[in-house]
């Protein structure tokens, strides 16, 4: 069990954004978290990655409790996420964006920062190469030096994934990676995601609305509605689940 989310709840000023939600992500899986808007999916993300503390419940990573640890600590433990609204460093180039993502691989020693020796220079060179490779991997090689602010929506999504990849995560959390993408771009992204499993990324958890991508890429789907977990299972099962259909389309008249 890589990620174990146990009975988490979160209240904001009396409104229960998340109520008693539990699910797990195993090594080797791609799990999708779906549900109508306002279901509490991003709040779950925020809790797992440490941006918010839950009002109740616990989160475990590889058996160790990590509830409430701050985001930068979670990143060090190998849990990295992307964000719903495009979150990149818009004044930096694509390459620089991904290079920043490599922060944890670089040195933070003051000594080596101001008096760099050969090891330091070598380390910087390696970071640069890794960043270069990741940019190519997600298909943005032709935009290597472009300022992130000038990218198209689809390219921005790819850049977000690339930045997260720079942090060499073991568990990658993607918040609506296909939002704003056209069909072709979504297919391209799905391909990238599938290829990621098997690198040092052991599992993916994503929030997504694009149903065809969800169905084609996930091993398991967790459905949320109004802060609660509605259903969980493989794609075929979820597709036919009556309550899920009702949640999305409303009750039959």
């Amino acid at each position, binding site marked *: 069990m890589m990620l174990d989310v146990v009975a988490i709840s979160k209240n904001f000023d009396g409104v229960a954004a998340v109520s008693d939600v539990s699910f797990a992500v195993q090594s080797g899986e791609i799990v999708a978290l779906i549900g109508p808007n306002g279901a509490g999916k991003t709040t779950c993300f*925020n809790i797992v990655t440490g941006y*918010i503390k839950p009002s109740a419940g616990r989160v475990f990573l590889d058996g160790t409790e990590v509830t409430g640890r701050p985001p930068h600590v979670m990143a060090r433990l190998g849990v990295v996420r992307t964000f719903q609204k495009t979150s990149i460093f818009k004044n930096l180039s694509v390459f620089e964006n991904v290079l920043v993502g490599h922060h944890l691989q670089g040195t933070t020693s003051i000594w080596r920062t101001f008096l760099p020796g050969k090891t330091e220079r070598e380390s910087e060179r390696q970071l640069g190469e890794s960043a270069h490779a990741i940019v190519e991997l997600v298909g943005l090689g032709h935009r290597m030096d472009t300022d992130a602010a000038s990218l198209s929506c689809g390219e921005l999504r790819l850049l977000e994934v690339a930045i997260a990849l720079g942090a060499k995560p073991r568990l990658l959390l993607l918040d609506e990676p296909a939002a704003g993408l056209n069909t072709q771009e979504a297919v391209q992204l799905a391909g990238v995601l599938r290829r990621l499993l098997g690198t040092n990324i052991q599992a993916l958890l994503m929030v997504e609305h694009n149903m065809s991508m969800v169905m084609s890429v996930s091993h398991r789907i967790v459905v949320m509605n109004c802060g609660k977990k509605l259903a969980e299972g493989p794609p075929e099962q979820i597709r036919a689940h009556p309550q899920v259909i009702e949640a999305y389309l409303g009750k039959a008249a």
Partner: protein
Amino acid sequence: MDLLLQLLANGLVNGTFYALSALGLTLVFGLMRVVNFAHGEMYVIGGLLGWALTGVVGLDFFTSLAVVVFGMGVAGWLIDRVLVSRVRDQDEEVGLLLMIGLSIFLANSALLVFGTTPRRVLSPFPTKPFFLGPVVVTQSRLFVVALCAALIVAAHLLIQKTALGQAMRATFQDAMAARLAGIRTEGIYGFTFGLGTALAGAAGTLLGSIYVAEPTNGGLISLKAFVVVILGGLGSFAGAITGGLILGVTEALWGGFVSTNSVDAIGFALVIVMLLVRPYGLFSKRGERP
């Protein structure tokens, strides 16, 4: 015991002054998220104008006050429309820098024009003492306290009870929604800034009748106002009043029982303590941000 009461009275009197002075600052920040670094300079200009009108031109106090309020209000509106509006959509720090530049300009221009001589605004009330039990307050001070309170109440009524005030509050909550509801948000911003400037200027005139108006004061006035606002919470009316009273009383007690030299420092010490304990002030509701 008598000493304590006297100090408390002094503190409350000063506190009311601080409250009025900080009110403009907290309004502008609360409604526009602009930190008016030039607040102290506007106070100073209010005081100098008040002197010019009562002393040189010879108008009576109330007319002068009205002219200052109106004039500073218009000036504030202009500053907003010409300068602040251009940087509104950028980061907060840009607006801050703008106001810092403005404050440097205003402080030194005032020095150029008026020189360093301290001036007095002519008060209609003499400095004869007024006895409230064992406590002594001068008539002129009482008068100013009363006017301060009146202005504070007037501002409160404006914001809470009028349609204009409602438009202001709506714009603060959600500018986009306010625009969709037909509110001319640009005008509201201008008015709010003008209100802030007018209140600062009024404080300057009022207090210039008790203390002095001099161009070098601006920085300290700004800082004290910031102290009050941080104590009470940025954007909170009640906070400005409470913060002002707290600062006034604390300064009076410290000055009376410990030493008068370091009185100014006590405000800063309070701020530092505040920031460790309750960073957003006494009255600010700060929930968790996702």
